[in-house]
């Protein structure tokens, strides 16, 4: 009682804010139970009969599921391999540029795509890759190649997603690394120059180790959205021809769950995905803490 009186105002502020988290972040967890039920809209979440793990058994025997899992994992793995290091490389390159004006100009242009929505970005990609009006077909033509319908070829889907994801957030992602690089003590660089270290050696021995803690944090944070990342991008780029390589768990759940009303089955897939994602981020955090002997990590 005493705490309530003492912190009355603070408590009411916090309760107001927490209500939003409780309803919109914890609320869906209640709906998750339909993954273990045979959900019918007329019966509601509570009234629908329990079916135990039936949907999960169905899932693991369905070949669709393995295709989705493979696409989701592969796409995210490629993004981690290529799209995660790209901003680091850009920051390292920008750091080598002597002219402040050029540096500024590159930064300002490279931030721009971050502020453009995926609707626009994807629309432009589809347009520029079109075999009839596209610019890429023109460039390929200069080298004697034939125009290809890139968006309609399943083998091009993953590269297109990875490259467009890189282009969109390359500049924006580099801000944090660039700031970390400018924070390096200049005396370190000077003494390395006196010792005869060249540009490349300084980059490997000084710059990269100095921004390692930042890289570690960003790595864990990027795993936080692992498996659900890039839904906005993929749903705009995907078409039935590229389902085989591009259909990921989220796009499937949206299509089959919300458009074909298979709520329980797709809720089970969604739950599986969320659990795998949770496991990944927890183990990544553990790994980073082990490697840095408890100095890095999110918590």
């Amino acid at each position, binding site marked *: 009682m005493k705490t309530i009186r003492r*912190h009355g*105002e*603070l*408590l009411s*502020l*916090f309760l107001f*804010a927490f209500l*939003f*988290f409780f*309803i*919109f*972040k914890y*609320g*869906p*967890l*209640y*709906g*998750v139970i*339909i993954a273990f039920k045979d959900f019918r809209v007329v019966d509601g979440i509570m009234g629908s009969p329990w079916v135990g793990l039936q949907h999960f058994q169905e899932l693991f025997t369905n070949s669709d599921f393995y295709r989705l899992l493979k696409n989701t994992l592969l796409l995210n793995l490629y993004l981690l391999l290529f799209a995660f290091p790209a901003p680091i490389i*850009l920051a390292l390159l*920008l750091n*080598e*540029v*002597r002219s402040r004006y*050029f540096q500024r100009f*590159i930064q300002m*242009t490279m*931030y*721009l*795509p971050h502020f453009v*929505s995926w*609707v*626009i970005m994807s*629309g*432009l990609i589809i*347009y*520029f890759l079109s075999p009839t*009006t596209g*610019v890429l077909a023109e460039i390929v033509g200069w080298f004697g190649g034939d125009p290809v319908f890139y968006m309609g070829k399943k083998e091009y889907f993953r590269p297109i997603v990875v490259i467009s994801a890189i*282009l969109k957030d390359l500049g924006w992602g580099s*801000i*944090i690394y660039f*700031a970390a690089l400018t924070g390096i003590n200049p005396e370190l660089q000077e003494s390395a120059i006196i010792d005869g270290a*060249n540009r490349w050696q300084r980059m490997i021995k000084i710059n990269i180790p100095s921004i390692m803690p*930042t890289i570690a*944090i960003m790595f864990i944070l990027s795993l936080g959205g692992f498996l659900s990342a890039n839904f*906005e991008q993929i749903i*705009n780029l995907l078409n039935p021809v590229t389902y085989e390589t591009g259909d990921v768990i989220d796009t499937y*759940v*949206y299509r089959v*769950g*919300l458009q074909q009303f298979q*709520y329980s089955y*797709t*809720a089970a897939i*969604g739950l599986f995905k*969320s659990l795998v994602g*949770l496991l990944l*981020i927890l183990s990544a955090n553990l790994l980073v803490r082990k490697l840095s002997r408890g100095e890095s990590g*999110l918590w």
Partner: protein
Amino acid sequence: MKAKRWQDRIAPGMIYFVLASLALIVVYPFIHVIAVSFSGRGEALRSGFHFIPRDFEWTAYRELLNYPFIWSGYSNTLFRMVVGTVLTLLVTVCAAYPLSRPDFPIKRFLILLLLFTMIFDGGIVPSYLLMKELHLLNSLWVYVLPTAANAFQVLVMLSFFRSIPDALIEAARIDGARDIRILFRIVLPLSIPPLVTIGLWSMVHHINAFMDNLLYVTDQSKFVLQQVIRQILIENKIDPFTTATNLVPPAPESLKMASVIVCTLPVLVVYPFLLKYFEKGTMIGSVKG
């Protein structure tokens, strides 16, 4: 010695070349889009590079601006930008300030509850059912209420509040001020930079968001601008413009490119302003929560 000279000249040259090409890849599409959106039919359908509009025409823009859903889209997007941003800031401050006070009860547990929402989500279907139960489907409120709860932003705000000297707050308390008064009179005036940053994050999110529209809203008069443009640009629904009463419809390409401009113009207008605050803001965000 000779090898070093060579390396010192080639390496910077290559760095400049790579960076300049990247900038070109980003800038060229904008030039192309503007050129095609203003070009006449024949020119717009021509393949290859476009630098300046030829056979200048703006039928594409006229058609778009006569399309009623563009305007409802603009007004719905404006609604979610204004209401959504204000609500986000309110919720963020109300969650972060109590947690920043050292004597607030069960602080650690509450922060853990927030952290958990960052790494686990119920999924698309359960969220959809929740919105349905709350009667938020096909309502403009579905755009602004769920996004107000953002744990990352609370952590950013929290780490800023913690950096405000305790002595200031204690002094006010001794003078008899209560918590809410302290928050509005002392803490918030000192917190303009993170408030601006989070406000801008939220605004950009609301300008560009379309997923909630796709998932929860089917009534076209409640579509946000992005979703209206998405129908034209991605789903190729251009018959409202070609089967209308006009005798010379614009080329679909011009129409699409004009829709890109109509859609990105709001962001481009505030871009210089964004740049000024955003870079600093990302650094505030880098403070460990």
